């Protein structure tokens, strides 16, 4: 017996990948001080990228019309 996995769940997991990478780098850096933790520039760039993509998605959604009946 099998079950279907909604691709949107995979998409959510993928969308978390940058935060996951930053987190793993940070955690790894504690155990291995020679690996530098994420810098201000990297964190700020990740924030700006996320903000821009999220805002673009909002504008796309707000431009959509309600579905017509029937």
């Amino acid at each position, binding site marked *: 017996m099998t079950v279907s996995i909604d691709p949107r769940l995979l998409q959510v997991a993928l*969308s978390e990948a940058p935060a996951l990478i930053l987190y793993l780098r940070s955690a790894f850096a504690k155990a291995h001080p020679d690996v530098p933790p994420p810098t201000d520039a990297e964190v700020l760039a990740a924030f700006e990228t996320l903000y821009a993509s999220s805002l673009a998605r909002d504008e796309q959604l707000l431009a959509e019309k*309600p579905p017509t009946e029937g």
Partner: protein
Amino acid sequence: MYRLLPKQTGPFVLLVVISFSFVPSSCAKAPPNLSPAGKAAWTNTRVIKILDLLRDTAVSAAAQNPPLIKFADRQRIVLWHEAAIKTIHATSSGWTATVMAPLDDIVRSLGPSEQQLLMPYVTLLKSIVVEVK
């Protein structure tokens, strides 16, 4: 659609995927080497991810047949989301009341089933906001 797993393990695997998606972004402390601006960006990145999830849940619910949430309510949530991320981007800190009060108003105005649908994401968002305060 991907048919990969036995039916019994499906829900468990989905729970694990979702849990691992959130643990790093919702529980990770900002690295100590970051400046105050970097720490704010770190936290605000986590917040926007949860706001996105809340918005995308409303969008997906409105796309169901029959819809689980009205299109007008979906648009209210998207509009709130847009204002919220603009506020967070512009102010970096001190945005909690400005962002959360309108969300509470929207949730209160929804029906019980819609509230139940969105409440896990609202709760998750509030738990992060407590950290930010």
